[in-house]
């Protein structure tokens, strides 16, 4: 990705992120968050993570944000206009954020790995076709690799279902628990008060 585009999307991600943190109107915040996540998805694309970028948009920017907006509208939450700000919390929050950023920057600066560019670690697709073990048995993956395209979704799917079958089951259980939780926590009483 050209540096200009990287900076653009980083700016979108962080700028809208900043608006989430500072915005007074919850609807603005939710929409900013969606925009920020779109920027983030673009950054994922630039890292050759196409599948992740897509579900970032589908799940986060799509489903989750709609849920947020829906709740905000449903509850008719007003802006915080007129409420006093909690100054000590703001000061400590900002201070902590600045310190953490500086810390992360320092750690990044000290790591050799962080100085690598994507040209330094190019993807070796054709070569990979011979080395990917069990996945090589799937012709769609090897054909894609040989033709020089990254079969991102296929590879993730293969990893998930080949190696992480157990984890998928657990996640399934977790989603079920989440569903149960939502029902328990929001259903109305039969005998309405």
């Amino acid at each position, binding site marked *: 990705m050209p540096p200009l585009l990287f900076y653009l999307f980083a700016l979108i991600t962080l700028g809208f992120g900043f608006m989430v943190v500072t915005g007074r109107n919850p609807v603005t915040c939710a929409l900013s968050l969606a925009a920020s996540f779109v920027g983030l998805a673009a950054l994922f694309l630039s890292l050759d993570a196409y599948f992740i970028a897509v579900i970032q948009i589908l799940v986060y920017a799509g489903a989750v944000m709609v849920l947020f907006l829906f709740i905000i509208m449903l509850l008719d939450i007003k802006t915080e206009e007129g409420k006093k700000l909690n100054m000590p919390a703001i000061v400590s929050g900002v201070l902590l954020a600045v310190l953490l950023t500086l810390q992360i920057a320092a750690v990044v600066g000290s*790591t050799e790995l962080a100085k690598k560019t994507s040209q330094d670690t190019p993807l070796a697709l054709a070569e990979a076709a011979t080395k990917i073990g069990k996945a090589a048995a799937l012709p769609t993956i090897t054909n894609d690799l040989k033709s020089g395209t990254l079969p991102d979704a296929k590879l993730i799917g293969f990893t998930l279902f080949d190696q992480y079958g157990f984890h998928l089951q*657990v996640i399934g259980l*977790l989603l079920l*628990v989440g569903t149960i939780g939502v029902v*328990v926590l929001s259903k109305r*009483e039969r005998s309405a008060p």
Partner: protein
Amino acid sequence: MSVFTIEAGLALLGLALLLLEAFKPDISRSTLGLTAIAGTTLALVLFFFVPHDSASLPGFVQPWHQLDSLALFYKGFALAITILVLWLTLECAPYLTRFTVDGKLAEMFSLPLIVCAGMMWMASARDLVTVFVTLELVTVSFYVLVAFARKSAFSLEAGVKYLILGALSTGVLVYGIAWIYGATGTMSFDGIAKALANPATSKTTALFGAAVLLCGLGFKVAAAPFHMWVPDVYQGAPTPVTAFLSVGSKAAGFVVLTRALNAFMAEGSIIGSEIQALLLVTGSLTVLLGSLPAMFQTSVKRLLAYSSISHAGYLLLALACRESARFDLSSGSVVAFYLATYLPMTVLGFLGLGLMRANGLGEDIKDFAGLAKRNPLLAMLMTISFASLAGLPLTAGFLGKLFVFLGLADHGYWGALICAIIAAAAGFYYYFKTILAMYTTEGTDVPALTFSGPAKAVACALALIILILGVYPKPLQQVLTPSGVGMVAK
């Protein structure tokens, strides 16, 4: 039949109970509760008879599961605490149903089963991905459980606080995992230990990742300075859930912590000494920040919450002490021993609180006044529980603390030892304050307090376990052998 069958069976039983309740709405509460208890008890019995080697596991979980003594110990532990919590729920049911929707409790019986399965899987985790998904399964279930009595404003508030801080800790945990992965290029504990023994690994990156990861886990086990949520959540949550949080969730946090630290502090690790210093500081801070505020609490439930923070501190200090030539108990052994003694005394304490609640009493120290006159047996049992929590000799609680002190003194961590001793002294103060209140004779013109036969039996059994382990800890000897629980993979 393997261990995994039992775990999966538990989760399925949880789902089955939900279905049962959905399709047969008139099913009685005690049927559900007793089914859950019977199922878990059966699981515990079966657990002792199934093969305990990794080869018995089904192929698709084998790469992610290890069945070492640490895992087996915590699996048994999770089953035991789940049985007790289910039983406690049943005992508190008449009180709890006043605050639940339509007076239903089905989820209170089925979710703990799923939590138990999650904790058992967590105990076996070999890599951070498994840790993450099982930890989240447990955490999300707890969000629901904490807020379950949603008609009580306390429970709901506790749910919100637990939710915000739980989600925060998840974020921090994932960020830590990301950096650990960045530094070592792997997510398996063995791989991390190997990479950290390699001097070419970037030390600052690894250290930063490990520290952030420990912060994330610190939330789960209530280590200072991430302990602020504990008193509010423990106080607000329904009492059985509080007991589950304070024993089950904490133990699960510590098993993950033990595994992570075994990787971070393995022999030759480039960040071993820094992590150890971090643990010492955090542990000392946690014992103090748990014990000192506890001295000023008026609510016993809150007091128990603070004391649970301070116990987490002792456990952290135990983790900081790796085995040495003289003190050849591994830190994992001490933690396991401590938790095993912590289980009966904490559950007994919360059981007493639950029974008082069920009798229409509050949870303040002043509600304890004259308990000895209302129900001498309950007062005696609570005395045993509190004495053990305070760490009185001849009760189970003393030995665990003694091992922590021995470890600290052996390594010469005098500062931490002094903090631990101050905290123990403060502990004596606040527990005795409560005990004294129970036996005080002034203004006790109050009706007697009753509780059911099974409650009596279970409470007496717990008290007996506390006393027996206090003078005869041999049943836990296996946990303490040097080759026992939680050895560093060398």
